[in-house]
């Protein structure tokens, strides 16, 4: 059942992305509400998929590779939708839909097997720690999208050559604000994720910190975002520099999420 829902939501995201892209290039206003509705429906189906998966697995489905990425994609969609509800950022939907679709495709290719939890993971810390961290990452993903859009738009305005993006992307101010809001929400969540992880580690292994690769990289990511926040509040960094740093930090997020698991070994390996 959860698999059917997963396929349906994947199809929904696929159609929504196609719709958003069609709107982006043709600028026909009729397409946008259709794409929005499709995206919304897909996000709802995705939610049901996760709930069913929870029932089938008997534990929070954030342990296998497939589950983690799917949950990440789900957070990005709802994070985007929550922003959509608060303020409009022109054509952010196009970029968000592409990201979600890519994540979902990766999730679809990973093994969907349900793996029983090892005893160390059987704790209520698991849903708290993993979901808080992934939701924080979703906000960072949106901030990264905003930053990419900022750099594209800034390049056209500064270079005085107006191409595809000038009329389609929102104002620099709106994109900078988007980035700021995402970081102000994402950073505390990431901090919370780290703290819960530390406490959980103490409970399971008896030590707060192991210098396991995933922990190390999380700390690096945390420092990168802390640097952005710090510079913004003290020196008033904004715009281009913040955008570049946000993108770099997000690459670090992705590496923490996957790179570490595949390239470096540690206690955080997905159940396999």
């Amino acid at each position, binding site marked *: 059942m959860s698999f059917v829902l997963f396929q349906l939501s994947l199809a929904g995201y696929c159609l929504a992305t196609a719709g958003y892209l069609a709107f982006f290039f043709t600028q026909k206003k009729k397409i946008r509400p259709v794409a929005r509705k499709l995206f919304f429906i897909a996000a709802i189906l995705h939610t049901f998929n996760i709930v069913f998966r929870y029932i089938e697995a008997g534990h929070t489905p954030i342990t296998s590779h497939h589950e983690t990425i799917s949950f990440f994609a789900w957070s990005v969609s709802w994070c985007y939708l929550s922003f959509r509800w608060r303020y409009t950022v022109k054509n952010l939907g196009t970029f968000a839909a592409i990201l979600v679709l890519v994540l979902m495709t990766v999730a679809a290719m990973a093994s969907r097997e349900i793996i029983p939890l090892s005893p160390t993971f059987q704790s209520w810390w698991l849903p708290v720690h993993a979901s808080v961290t992934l939701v924080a990452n979703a906000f960072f993903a949106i901030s990264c999208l905003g930053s990419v859009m900022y750099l594209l*738009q800034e390049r056209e*305005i*500064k270079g*005085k050559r*107006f191409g595809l993006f*000038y009329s389609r992307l*929102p*104002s*620099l*101010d*709106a994109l900078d*604000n988007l980035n700021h809001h995402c970081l102000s929400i994402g950073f505390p969540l990431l901090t919370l994720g780290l703290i819960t992880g530390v406490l959980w580690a103490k409970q399971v292994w008896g030590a707060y910190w192991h210098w396991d690769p995933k922990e190390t990289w999380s700390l690096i990511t945390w420092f990168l975002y802390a640097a952005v926040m710090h510079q913004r509040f003290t*020196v*008033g*960094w*904004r*715009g*281009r*520099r913040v955008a570049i740093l946000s993108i770099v930090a997000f690459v670090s997020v992705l590496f923490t999420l996957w790179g570490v698991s595949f390239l470096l070994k540690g206690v955080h390996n997905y159940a396999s």
Partner: protein
Amino acid sequence: MHRDAIILLGVNHKTTPLAVREQLALAGGYEDPLRDLGQLSAIKEHFLLSTCNRVEVLFTCARELVEDAKKQVLELLFASRVSQRELQQYVYAHLDDRAVEHLFEVASSLDSMIVGEAQILGQLKEAYRFASKHRSSGLVLNKLLHKSFSVAKRVRTETRIGASAVSISFAAVELAKKIFGNLTDKKVLLVGAGEMAELAAEHLVGQGVAQVVVANRTLERAVKLARCYNGKAVALEELLDQLEHVDIIISSTGATDLILHKRDVRSVMRERRNRPLFFIDIAVPRDLDPNINELDNVYLYDIDDLNNVVELNKTERDREALKADRIVQEEVVKMHQWLEGMATTPTIVELRNMVNCLVEKEVAKTLGRLSGLNKNEQQAIERMATSIANKILHHPMQYLKTDHHCISQSERIGQVRNLFQLDHNKQDFAR
């Protein structure tokens, strides 16, 4: 049975230099000139529009008095201000359809200095408010002006003429919006006070910027200009201090050297905590160091850059202007039909009144004779009488209204009036 002529006299920015336009502008408001025009016996309805770019006088008069009326109007409004020769040279006069077309073009901003700007429609409506307050506009001009508002609306909604950056100052505003998003809490600094700078400032004020600061070499001119925008004036020496507080700088001094260097702006950015700055340099030779654009969060556009933006939009603008022209032409034709129809209106009204009177009288007579009818039955009789009358009137009405290729309209009006003896029995029927 000729209908009245519609005449439009005026000067605009295309035909007339500013110095003459200034003389002709109705600086004292509309009230006095409207009242004075009302004294003229030759003209029937009249309307005045005066903005910084144009003065337009629209009036109707009997067809044989056109030349007299023109002369009287010019004499009354302008003779004391400029010479006869200048009036001859600059004032254009349009008649009937051409006048209608011109008014529609003005209303839909096709005749504006900045094609597609929205301000003119507001000015036109304001002028019309005065005219209707003084009852100087009647049936024809009311219809014509209302029509011009709806033409303007059609042009605005059906073409993108107002949406694209069609001129330099529009391009500047569009860029500012792409940088700042919302302009309502932004401040503008005008450095030097040229005509272009004023135009751009006016646009920005139209977008609701919070404050305008004017810096000029001669403080007196700065104070004068600042007063226009409820802004404040500063001396040119305070430029660097001001950069900390403003967001958009429009520079147009006559200075031969650069007045602002990259290092000046860099130190200011630190003070500003990197809030973006948008420089617009419309001076030739340039006022601002081109390298300023290399700084983060600082954007510099000079006159050539802005021209490029305008060029980008030019083909689109031409296409949209074509579309807008077609709309204006269509509406001129519709207006023409309405004006033609105007001639038949009095006859139609009289005919209707006469028949209604007859119906009322006869129904009253019949109902008086029939006693014991209930309300429904009485109404049925009234309805029957009215509908017989309407059926009989239908063909004569159609005959009046529709175009007939071999019998002219005036002849048809005459026939109907004779047939129903409208001119003889006026006292009996018409109320």
